[in-house]
């Protein structure tokens, strides 16, 4: 085989790889699940400890729901992936979110307590983006982290910061998830 033939074969296997990755790990599922959870967190955005407790439960529940939806979709499409990494990352992030909120409350920073759980969710998006090779997810996570830092530097009131993140960011994640779902249906 010569190098030109190898280059053509390489292109073809990269195409097949890309198709398998898209079918395995479309990004709409985590966007929709965590978008809903983030919007729902608005109900407890007035209290840092309640927000920490909320995400301490919501993050693992959201993870389990995300994994279940991926597996269900995988069985339907005929291609399934390993979920061990997702469980490890997501439970680690949930623990970090809860610990961060508790630590921030202990140091007396209400703003940090309000922002810490959502920072953990943002980091989870970056890591999910890395796991799924999705630049979109990683970019959303990075934008979330930037938003949190911006709110911290602006010293926004904790209640308002948490509410802004819950509604604006959660709503954006939902819209992004619905958009991805619509695009993938049109392409099919």
């Amino acid at each position, binding site marked *: *085989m*010569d*190098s*030109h033939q*190898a*280059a053509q*074969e*390489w292109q*073809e*296997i990269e195409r*097949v*790889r890309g*198709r*398998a*990755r898209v*079918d*395995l790990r479309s990004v709409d599922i985590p966007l929709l699940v965590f978008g809903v959870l983030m919007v729902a967190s608005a109900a407890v955005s007035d209290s840092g400890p309640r927000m920490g407790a909320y995400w301490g439960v919501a993050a693992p529940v959201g993870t389990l729901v995300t994994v279940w939806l991926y597996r269900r979709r995988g*069985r339907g*499409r*005929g*291609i*399934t*992936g*390993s979920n061990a990494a997702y469980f490890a990352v997501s439970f680690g992030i949930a623990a970090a979110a809860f610990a961060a909120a508790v630590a921030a409350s202990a140091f007396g920073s209400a703003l940090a307590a309000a922002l810490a759980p959502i920072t953990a969710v943002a980091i989870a998006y970056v890591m999910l983006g890395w796991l799924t090779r999705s630049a979109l997810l990683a970019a959303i996570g990075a934008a979330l982290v930037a938003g949190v830092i911006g709110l911290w530097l602006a010293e926004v009131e904790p209640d308002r910061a948490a509410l802004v993140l819950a509604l604006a960011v959660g709503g954006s994640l939902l819209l992004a998830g619905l958009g991805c779902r619509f695009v993938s249906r049109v392409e099919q």
Partner: protein
Amino acid sequence: MTQSQARHPSSGLDAIVHQPARLGILTVLGEARRADFVYLRDTLELSDGNLSRQLQVLEQAGHVAIEKVFEGRRPRTWVSLTKTGRVALRAERDALRALVNRLDGLR
């Protein structure tokens, strides 16, 4: 010229893995925990007969494991990559990449 200097990158290609359909099958399975017969057929645009033949070759070589199950009343064939298959796929990709880099070096 020494023997290692004279060795062409194509000598790293495995005849069983290198066939386009089989390489495509292993590539899909390299990304997944498992894929079913219909998914492989549609993604790789193969006929049922051709895919069955290629899977048989790969199974005999120990590169894939095939599991036939019933989901309700519906029969389903799931295919997954074995450890041997994963090693073979990685070696094939490395050999192809070396050939492509050789081409880039000539340009």
